[in-house]
Structure formats: structure tokens, C-alpha cells
């Protein structure tokens, strides 16, 4: 009962390092050259637990010499890397594989294959690499002769035909072969003994009379008793040198390695009786690999995640945060942090440290605003600048954005050189349009962003952003520094209705709802004026302890992230201790959000290494966030602002502060400077 032999096809298995090396060669060596390149494929059937017979390629495939690691047999390959996707598509696949086949036939005829039998095992890769996207289109072929009909006779396991001793000896002889001799060899059975011969040593001695004592052995690519398709190339070789075997029955060994415990054995190899066809060295070759949809067509490897350093950095940053979520805080909302657009008004020590902490939290959109250039004193304190930036006198906002992208290319960072108009800084006729423009730009920036950080170096420059933050109802985080003190706070939400919303509050604490929380100016009852002229007390302090800005910058971001975790965002209430009773009672408010407390204000004192968390109510005559001021801006817009810029007294009159001043003698001014180190 004769059946025609069926075959197993190889499957390609590309290691990531193969694409890595291809990219390197394309960029540095080949450039626009399309010449094909010789490569090695690796095959073994050990250490595999898979249904396919796989041929591996990796970075060492491009080496001159094959490194068998005592484990692999070589496949001789060629890679043809096309310059464009069109050339890749237009390439004639039939011509290509027939050309490969022709070369193989020649090496059979000229005897090269006899010396190096591994030459019967060939493959080629047609490829196009889109290096911008890290997309690799590729198509493997494993050329074998078409239309070779072989009839299968008896098949039997090696272990059922020969003694254990013989099989053991055969494996030892096999192990001693060089890698390229392992692919195809001859086994002789004579006087109850198995002997292994190299093709070049024995092929010429096989005759019609003695051929039954010989077995043509091949290292089979399949472990399940079906020969690999490369057998057809072997048969072409055999019939060329032993034409007397045409239409004769001949013994073959499909040689495979397997494990018996830890030890390697060849006992699971199969002996086949095969009836060979007539020699017909046709010109038609087949062997293009099917793709994952089981169609004849190329495959696409998307290696962006593996090879694009930008993507690697992007994923690594996110993964670091996800580990925090997975391992410590399953309920933290990282997406809301990542998707928050942050506006940093001021790009000095605070701006730099806020930006870096935002980056660490995975924030991707960061916009800097500043009006100065990098000076020589800046780089040591302001963590985003270098000496060269000061030599180049780069604008701070731009230098900060550029350097942030150098640290992490995944961030969308932009810088705007912008003077923020200030109360009491009169606007001359010539500057009017510029100031109008700046106000409009700032208004747009605040509207576009989700979190506004006030990190400037003067008190009065915070006024307009505070007002605009209230007007657009954004999360506003304010940080200011003294010599060894810092203030970090969140502004309350703007809402005409100031009624207290009820929230439960543990003993020893009081609560202020988010719509009643104050802003930076609520605590101070003079309008911000020109500090150079009017206010000498808390604005002239120009030095801070170097660590203060790092602490305050980090706290500003952590406060913002906590606000984002609360369902009410900036409307989240704030708690504060009314007596020491809370501490005595051991009462703590820990779970206001998943990260813990969301204070209104953090005030720190470095001299005592102490920190307190007061909360203050909105001042109804506040010059920046009161209903009167916001409504006035909503009604009169720039005209109103202009009046304030020209005279900060206007604000005091508007809010009734002037009236109040008459009543109050003593003005308690905060001992805090807004200045940084300039």
C-alpha cells in the first residue's frame, strides 16, 4: 500500500535582535544599496515544545561564520532588503525563488554540496524596513523543488530496527560531525553494525548492487515522523549522483534528536522506505511561507515597542507608575494625572522642580511661561538648565521646554516668553496693544489647561492668573518661597453661591468646603502693588535656602495629584485642626482621597524642619477671587484690567478694602517672600 509522501514546511521565527541588526546595517553600511546579504538560519529540534518546525534568525545570523553552539544546524540564507514598499511589492516572487533554486542545482552539479551538505538547506528573506515606524515587512521562502513525487513504503522507528548499542554509537558518531555535515549523511549497516559516513566519503561508492545496505540520513526538521520538504532537494542530489536509484526503493533515516531524561538520543528517528521518482531536474521551485492568516503573503513585524527608544522610555515611565497602582494603590487614577494639561507660570527654581515632578507622575503636556533668560547663576539651582543655556542666553521658557524633552522625548513641552501684566504697573500708550495681546494669550493658556501652577517670583504677577483661574474655574496651585519658609496652596473654586456644603468632620477638626476656600490673596488685605515702589517688607528678600524650592515644587505637584484623585477635584473640602485635641485623640484624616489628605495650605519652616496645614476661608472682599472682582472682569474685560494695571488702588476701592483700611490700624503682613534667587 503505497502512499505519496507528504512534507512539513518550516516556519520562520525572528528574534528581535535580527531586526535590530538589520536596522543598524541599513543605516550604517548598506544605506541605499540593495545588494543581498548572506545570512545564517538556525535549526534544532531540541529544547522546543512547539507544534511548528521553526527556523530562527537573530543578530548573529549576519556573522561570517556559523556558531552552532553544538546544538544548531545551519541554513544558508539571503536577505534582500528593498528600499521602498513599492519595490518590495513589485518584486517577482516566482523569479526570485527559481533563481535561488538554480543556484542550488548548480552547487549540486559542481559537487559543492557533496563537500558541504548543509547547502541543500536554503532560505531567503524579501524585506522592506520602514525605519521611521519600526515596521518590518518580510517574506521568508524555503526553496525546494516542485513536483517531486515520492512513494512511501514501510516506516519504522530506529529503535525498533537496531540495537540500543548501535543507536548509541550512531549518536556519538553524529555528535562528532561538524555542523554542516550533520544536515545530511550516510549510514551503513554491515556486519550487525551501524556506521556513519560523510557524503563525500561514501556517495561515490554506492552502487546498484550495494545500495540496500545504505541509509540516506537527513536531520529532519519535524519531530513527528513526517519529513521536511528539504528532502526533495536531497533526492535531487541523490538522483544526480546515483541515477541508478531512479524508480527504485531506497532506505532513508529521518534523523531527529530527543531527550531520554536529560540525555540526548537519536532513537526516535524514523527509517523510511521510499520509492524515488525519475530524475527530472525541473526549473520550478516553491517554498514561500504563508502568513498568519494562512495566505501566501508577507508578514509585518511591528517592532516599535521593542526598538524605538522613545517608545521604550514612554512605556517604562508608565510602567513604573502602574507598578505603584498594581502593588500599592489599586484605586489610584493614573490616567487622569497623565491626561492633565499643566501650565507652569514661572520657569525658575520652582518651575523646574514642578516640571520634573510632573514628568515623574507621567504627565505628558507641560507648558512653560516666563519672561526672562537663563543667567549664569540659574543652572545650579534650576534643575532644567545648563551652563550652555546661560552662555546662549536662552529664554527660560524655551530652554525649560527643550531640556524637558531631552530628559523625556514623550513629553509635549512648549515655552512661551510672556510678560504677565501686573496691578500697579502702569501701561503706557505704546505698550497698550502688547499688553492686550499678553492678557489674551494668558487667558487662552489658562482656558486650555487643566492645572495652573503659580510659580512666579513676584506677588503682583500672581494677581491676573489668580483672577483668570477663578474665572475659568481651574485647579490653581500656588507656591511661594521665603528665605527658609515655603507656602504651597490650592485655590478654592469660584462659585457665586458661598453656602457651606455639609461634610462630616471628625472631632478636633473643622472643614471648609471647596467653594469657600481662599486664594493666595484672601489672606492679605492689601491689593498687590508695585513692590519696587510701595511694598518693601516681603518682596525684597532675594535669597532662599537652596533646598526650599525643591521641597515646595515637589509639594505643589503632590498636592495637585491629590486634588485630581478626589471626585470633587478642586471643590474638595479642606480640613484643619482646631485644637491639639485631634492629636491627643489620635484622630487623623487619612483617606480624603486614595492618596490621603488634601490640605488647603502647606506652610513649611526649614529652620525647625516643621510643617503646618492651615486652611483659610475665602475673603469676601478679596482683590483677586471675590465675586465682585470676577464679575467686574466678566463684565468689562480688558478695560477693567487696564484700570487695575494703572492703579492697584482701583482694586481696593472696588472691593471696599479702602473703606476697611480706615477702620483698621494694624496691617499684619505675611512674612513670606515670593522671590526666588534672583
Amino acid at each position, binding site marked *: 500500500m503505497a502512499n505519496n509522501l507528504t512534507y512539513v514546511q518550516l516556519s520562520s*521565527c525572528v528574534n528581535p535582535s535580527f531586526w535590530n541588526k538589520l536596522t543598524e546595517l541599513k543605516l550604517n553600511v548598506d544605506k541605499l544599496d540593495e545588494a543581498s546579504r548572506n545570512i545564517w538560519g538556525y535549526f534544532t529540534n531540541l529544547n522546543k515544545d512547539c507544534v511548528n518546525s521553526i527556523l530562527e534568525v537573530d543578530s548573529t545570523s549576519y556573522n561570517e561564520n556559523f556558531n552552532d553552539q553544538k546544538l544548531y544546524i545551519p541554513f544558508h540564507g539571503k536577505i534582500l532588503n528593498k528600499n521602498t514598499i513599492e519595490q518590495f511589492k513589485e518584486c517577482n516572487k516566482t523569479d526570485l525563488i527559481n533563481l535561488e533554486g538554480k543556484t542550488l542545482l548548480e552547487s549540486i552539479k559542481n559537487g559543492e554540496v557533496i563537500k558541504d551538505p548543509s547547502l541543500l538547506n536554503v532560505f531567503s528573506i524579501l524585506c522592506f524596513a520602514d525605519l521611521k515606524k519600526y515596521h518590518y515587512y518580510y517574506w521568508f521562502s524555503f526553496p525546494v523543488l516542485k513536483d517531486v513525487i515520492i512513494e512511501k513504503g514501510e516506516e519504522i522507528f530506529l529503535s525498533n530496527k537496531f540495537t540500543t548499542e548501535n543507536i548509541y554509537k550512531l549518536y556519538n558518531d553524529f555528535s562528532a560531525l561538524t555542523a554542516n555535515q550533520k544536515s545530511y549523511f550516510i549510514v551503513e549497516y554491515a556486519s550487525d553494525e551501524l556506521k556513519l559516513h560523510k557524503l563525500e566519503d561514501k556517495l561515490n561508492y554506492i552502487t546498484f548492487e550495494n545500495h540496500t545496505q545504505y541509509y540516506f540520513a537527513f536531520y529532519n526538521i519535524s519531530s513527528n515522523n513526517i519529513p521536511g520538504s528539504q528532502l526533495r532537494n536531497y533526492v535531487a542530489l541523490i538522483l544526480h549522483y546515483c541515477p541508478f536509484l531512479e524508480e527504485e526503493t531506497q532506505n532513508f533515516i529521518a534523523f531527529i534528536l530527543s531527550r531520554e*531524561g*536529560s540525555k*540526548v538520543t537519536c532513537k526516535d528517528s524514523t527509517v523510511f522506505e521510499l520509492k524515488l521518482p525519475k530524475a527530472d531536474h525541473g526549473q520550478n521551485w516553491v517554498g514561500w511561507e504563508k502568513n498568519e492568516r494562512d495566505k501566501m503573503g508577507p508578514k509585518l513585524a*511591528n517592532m516599535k*515597542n*521593542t526598538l524605538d527608544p522613545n517608545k521604550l522610555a514612554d512605556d517604562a515611565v508608565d510602567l513604573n507608575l502602574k507598578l505603584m497602582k498594581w502593588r500599592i494603590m489599586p484605586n489610584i487614577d493614573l490616567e487622569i494625572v497623565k491626561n492633565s494639561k499643566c501650565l507652569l507660570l514661572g520657569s525658575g527654581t520652582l518651575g523646574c522642580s514642578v516640571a520634573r515632578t510632573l514628568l515623574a507622575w507621567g504627565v505628558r503636556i507641560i507648558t512653560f511661561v516666563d519672561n526672562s533668560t537663563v543667567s549664569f547663576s540659574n543652572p545650579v539651582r534650576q534643575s532644567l538648565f545648563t551652563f550652555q543655556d546661560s552662555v546662549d542666553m536662552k529664554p527660560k521658557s524655551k530652554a525649560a521646554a527643550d531640556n524637558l524633552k531631552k530628559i523625556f522625548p514623550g513629553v509635549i513641552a512648549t515655552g512661551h516668553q510672556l510678560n504677565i501684566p501686573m496691578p500697579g504697573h502702569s501701561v503706557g500708550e505704546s505698550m497698550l496693544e502688547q499688553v492686550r495681546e499678553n492678557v489674551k494669550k494668558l487667558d487662552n493658556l489658562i482656558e486650555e489647561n487643566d492645572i495652573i501652577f503659580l510659580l512666579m517670583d513676584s506677588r503682583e504677577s500672581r494677581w491676573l492668573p489668580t483672577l483668570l483661574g477663578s474665572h475659568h474655574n481651574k485647579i490653581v496651585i500656588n507656591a511661594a518661597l521665603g528665605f527658609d519658609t515655603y507656602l504651597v496652596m490650592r485655590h478654592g473654586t469660584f462659585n457665586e453661591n458661598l453656602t457651606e456644603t455639609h461634610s462630616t468632620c471628625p472631632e478636633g477638626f473643622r472643614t471648609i468646603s471647596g467653594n469657600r476656600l481662599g486664594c493666595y490673596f484672601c489672606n492679605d488685605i492689601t491689593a498687590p502693588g508695585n513692590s519696587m515702589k510701595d511694598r518693601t517688607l516681603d518682596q525684597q528678600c532675594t535669597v532662599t535656602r537652596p533646598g526650599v524650592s525643591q521641597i515646595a515644587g515637589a509639594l505643589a505637584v503632590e498636592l495637585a495629584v491629590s486634588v485630581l484623585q478626589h471626585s470633587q477635584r478642586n471643590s474638595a473640602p479642606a480640613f484643619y485642626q482646631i485644637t491639639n485635641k485631634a492629636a491627643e485623640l489620635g484622630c487623623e484624616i487619612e483617606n480624603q482621597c486614595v492618596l490621603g489628605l488634601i490640605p488647603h495650605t502647606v506652610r513649611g519652616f526649614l529652620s525647625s524642619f516643621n510643617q503646618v496645614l492651615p486652611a483659610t476661608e475665602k475673603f469676601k472682599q478679596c482683590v483677586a477671587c471675590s465675586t465682585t472682582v470676577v464679575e467686574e472682569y466678566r463684565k468689562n474685560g480688558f478695560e477693567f484690567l487696564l484700570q487695575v494695571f494703572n492703579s492697584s488702588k482701583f482694586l481696593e476701592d472696588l472691593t471696599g478694602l479702602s473703606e476697611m483700611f480706615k477702620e483698621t490700624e494694624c496691617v499684619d503682613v505675611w512674612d513670606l517672600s515670593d522671590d526666588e534667587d534672583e
Partner: protein
Amino acid sequence: MDSNQTLTIDEFNLSIENIIKISNDILDGWTLHVNKENDNGKYITKKSTISIEEPGKGNPITLTYEHHVVFSLSYSVPMICFNVWKADGSVLSMEEYLNINQNFDDSNMYNTITQLDHPVLCRPFLTLHPCKTQEIIEPFLSTSKNPVISWLTVVSSYVHLKILEEYIKHC
């Protein structure tokens, strides 16, 4: 006996050289790499290929594992780092890997498998979290001839690594 005994880098190097020797005898595929710029530059790697069913889709896919056994100077323990890729070369992310892995239930997989930088290659790899390793390896330090093998036999099943019995004879 010293209760806070740790594996020295010399013991580690001897252990992995021993693994290479055994592997060469039985064609197990471990390869030694030496990076001269690092004190802990010696490490070994092995590739193995499996077929699994793609979750949700049911069709078989071929996955290649590349395991690295490398010494972590910061933990003074051996680390097992690995990457897994599909037949086209694309490497599985940690989430994709955990998604197809059957060995972990939801509650502890993130505590067992993590992603860390390879101590020599400085590239992200999947790994077993090294903070438990000292606990596992400590008893072997005085009793095993090859503590690295002893440790591998304990942890290998978590990372799809097969340790043949031949190795166990050597520890």
C-alpha cells in the same frame, strides 16, 4: 553558621560556569556571556520555544523565551530576567505576558513577576522580584554545591524555564 550569608559574585560565577559545562554535555543550550566592563559582567542565557493558544482567539502562536541568569550587585542575589517574543520578533509587554500566563492568579501575579532593568544590559526585562530571592537561596548556600541551580529548581516553573534532572545531580 552565619545567619546573614549571601551569595558572593565568585560563587555565582563558579555556579554558572558549572551550568554551562553541564549544558554543553547535554545540549541544553545555555550560553555564557562576558561583559568585561561590569564587575558582574558574567551571565548566562538560554532560548526555548513553545506553542500556546492565544487567549480569546484559540489559534496557536509560537513564543520564544530568552532567560538570563545574572548577578544583581544591589541585592547580592542571582536574578532571572527574561524576554518573550512572538515569531515576528515583537516582544511581549509585561501586561501581554501576564495575560497569557497561566501560572499566576490575579491576586499575586503583580507581586511575583515585575519588570526591572537587566543588571548588565540595562534594558527592561521581565523578572521575578529579587527581594524574595535571598530568602529562597539562603538555605542552599551552606548545603548545595551549586546554589544557583538549587535556587533555579525552586523558581523555574514560575518563568517557564525547564531545569533538567542532570543539573540537580550537581548540587
